[in-house]
């Protein structure tokens, strides 16, 4: 067997492998997307019969504890807390956890909300870093507010501290800098009231990009298509993920991720599972996977509910540097989560979770960027060694690219069909044109950042990396929102 024959064999195997992988990936994504249509339709029809205001005024509505971790968010914290206190829901407490900020967040909060340190007995159902103090307001206007000041332990630790302090049966974990829709809480809570034999353990909604949108006094007043390329591109990504992917998984009851930016959880199950893991930077996904795993092992009927309405608006990275850090962290979080729960991989004991959800995430979400990255390297090597059949290779690349365009176009159509935010022809055209650039500009960067995340894992790199936010476009007093805030509590997916 000659050397050139072996190389040719490797090349053929490589090309065939890429093709087969691409086909599997396409079929999976397309299958999930098409499967999502029925659920989307059902939700649209169901909404006709839903009057959320009934819930807002009912004394039988469940009580909620909102937990908002904050780290170095001093410049925007007052406005963010005000926005949380103004949430349209009758019975809730707002717990802001200052996770050892190095800035003057605590002082600002104390002054703005007339806080005083109180003796507070905490039942440590989940172990956390030391809590330095619990603060409550002297002003009865802010009696819903509890501020926990603790030593730095990361977002998960801060959320766990909030869970320990919370007194209600349902917890709402939210990023302090998110902007919620007026009826977001009502929509998220309703599934818990609809449960009968199947226990609802968590609910999440659609996250949307708020860059360029107008925010007034903590409320989103006007949705505007993102003017900058990166946020617009991420907007398209979010539409694909939330409108197609999560909806389909929700219908299958195989959803593994409730966005860390906004999710409601059954506190009893969260505590039984040990709360958020501090061993991963993908704590939002890890918690959902662990809760599901726990209930599978207990052989309990349960579901994770997904609300296909835009409920929460967040600011997306608008520079490649920050975007890269974010995707690096997501990659590490995904790897860590899947590694922690590797026992479920094709394990029939975990039913759909083990046989479908986990393998999908493993092969396509975790493996996809690796296949693309190494595929590209092999492609260059083969090109340099003159082994490439250019016609075929270019056709294969075009085949994959046009699939991506089709998928994006379908996501945009579903967004329009479901009457979400972008209703102008110009906005839709912008999204379509943006999607055409994705394979050449945005996507390669995402793949590289993700692969760097995997490499960082081997270099034992931990932590979130700093996220710099620009702040929303405000029409209210400019002092309430930062122009630039450095935080590491801003995960958006």
């Amino acid at each position, binding site marked *: 067997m000659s050397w050139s024959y072996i190389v040719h064999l490797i090349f053929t195997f490589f090309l*065939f492998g890429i*093709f087969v992988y691409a086909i599997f990936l396409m079929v999976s994504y397309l299958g999930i997307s098409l499967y999502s249509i029925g659920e989307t339709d059902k939700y649209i*029809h*169901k909404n*006709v*019969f839903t*009057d959320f205001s*009934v*819930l807002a005024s*009912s004394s*039988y*509505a469940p009580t909620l504890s909102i937990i908002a971790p904050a780290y170095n968010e001093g410049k925007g914290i007052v406005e963010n807390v005000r926005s949380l206190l103004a949430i349209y829901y009758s019975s809730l407490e707002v717990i802001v956890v200052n996770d050892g900020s190095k800035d003057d967040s605590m002082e600002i909060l104390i002054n703005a909300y007339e806080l005083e340190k*109180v*003796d*507070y*007995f905490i*039942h*440590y*159902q989940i172990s956390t870093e030391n809590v330095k103090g619990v603060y*409550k307001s002297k002003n009865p206007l802010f009696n819903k507010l509890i501020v926990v000041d603790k030593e730095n332990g990361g977002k998960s630790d801060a959320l766990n501290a909030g869970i320990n302090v919370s007194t209600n*049966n349902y917890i709402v974990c939210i990023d302090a800098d998110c902007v919620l829709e007026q009826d977001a809480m009502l929509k998220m809570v*309703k599934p818990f*009231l*609809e*449960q*009968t*034999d199947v226990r609802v353990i968590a609910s999440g909604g659609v996250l949307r990009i708020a860059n360029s949108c107008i925010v007034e006094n903590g409320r989103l007043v006007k949705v505007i298509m993102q003017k900058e390329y990166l946020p617009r591109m991420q907007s398209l990504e979010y539409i694909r993920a939330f409108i197609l992917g999560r909806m389909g998984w929700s219908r299958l009851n195989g959803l593994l991720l409730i966005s860390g930016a906004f999710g409601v959880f059954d506190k*009893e199950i969260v505590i039984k599972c040990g709360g958020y893991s501090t061993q991963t930077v993908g704590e939002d996904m890890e918690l959902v996977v662990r809760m599901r795993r726990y209930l599978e092992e207990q052989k309990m009927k349960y579901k994770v509910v997904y609300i296909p309405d835009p409920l929460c608006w967040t600011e997306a990275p608008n520079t490649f540097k920050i975007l890269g850090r974010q995707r690096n962290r997501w990659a590490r979080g995904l790897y860590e989560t899947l590694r922690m729960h590797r026992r479920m991989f094709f394990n029939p004991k975990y039913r759909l979770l083990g046989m479908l959800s986990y393998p999908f995430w493993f092969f396509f979400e975790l493996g996809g960027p690796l296949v693309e990255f190494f595929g590209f390297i092999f492609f260059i090597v083969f090109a340099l060694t003159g082994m490439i059949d250019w*016609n*075929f290779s270019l*056709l*294969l690349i*075009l*085949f994959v690219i*046009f*699939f991506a*365009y*089709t998928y994006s*176009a*379908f996501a*945009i*159509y579903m967004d*329009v*069909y479901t*009457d979400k935010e972008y*209703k102008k*022809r110009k906005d*839709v055209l912008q999204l*379509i044109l943006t999607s055409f650039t994705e394979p050449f500009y945005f996507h390669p960067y995402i793949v590289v950042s993700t692969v760097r995340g995997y490499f960082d894992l081997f270099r034992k790199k931990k932590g979130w990396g700093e996220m710099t936010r620009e702040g929303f476009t405000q029409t209210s007093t400019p002092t309430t929102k930062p122009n630039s805030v450095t935080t590491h509590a801003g995960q958006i997916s």
Partner: protein
Amino acid sequence: MNENTLIAGIEVFIFSIIIILAFTYGTLYIKKKKFVYQKYLHKNLEDWLSTGIIEDADKNVVALPTLKFLLLLKNPILRQLTINELLALKRTFWGDAAKNITVLYVQLGLKDFSLKKMKSNKWHVKARAIQELYLMQQREALPRIYKNVNSQNEFIRMEAQIGIIHLIGFDGLRFLNVIDNKLTEWQQIKLLDQLSKFPLNEDILAADIPRWLKSPNETVIMFAMKLVDRYHRYSEYDNVAACLSHEVEPVRKQAVNTLHRIQNENTAQLFIAQYDKETYFNKLNILNNLEDIATEKESEFLTRLLQEPNDTLKLRAARILAKCHSKGLKTLEHAGQLQAVPYQQIYLHIKGEMAR
């Protein structure tokens, strides 16, 4: 796998993209058209309402809107939009204006349209038809709506149940005698909301609540207890107390909540007797409900609870003890002196709470 296959694949994708884009812009166009029609309908109907004179009060006849408006109704989509608009107006207007809207709904043949939709096999069309009929006060449709209170489809049966209450108030609660499916908490909230729009019917509640409290359907029991709670049916105290021994945990929880609302001098002791038999969350609920009804008589029990292994239960018991007994806070202070962790912190927590 060859080049031709890939080319064919690419062609399929390009074709799909063109089709999807055509659908997208088509959908945008239709939505815009609908929006324009909606605005037109809204304006027309509002103008009509402002001048809407009942032509013949006895025969329930109103002056019809413009001819152009009527012509639109030939189109089933626009007919549905008109119904939607009428329903939206019905929600905002009262008195004669609301009555005129109902008369117009019938006069334009939209009631027949709704009745026809009730025969649909699509759940959302049928549920929508029920909703339209009850919101437009079509009592003649009551028997047809009632047939659906046990529908296999949750949305149809929910709308039917709401519809019955909407049309005949407390009398409509008789559906509780026949339903096999569970009433979700959400549905119970909606039913209570509907009932709140009617004057209390003592007779029905007095006659039927005892039966519902013994229903084989635990959600009917829970709903009945909410009725007891909402309408202060003190006479049902014993029947509700009997629910404390129900095997379903949420039923027992609701029983505690309801008994708290219709409490008497024995309620606190009843809760104490129940406490040890309960799950953790029901124990918490008992303590929450005990907070404002406990007296010095319960202090012995509460002092015992300070030894509970669970810290949350300890804290709740301590809070009640401090409130119900003049020496409760002293007891906590003393416990803190004997064993600093966790009692000292609990004492300070409660003391601070009481001072605020």
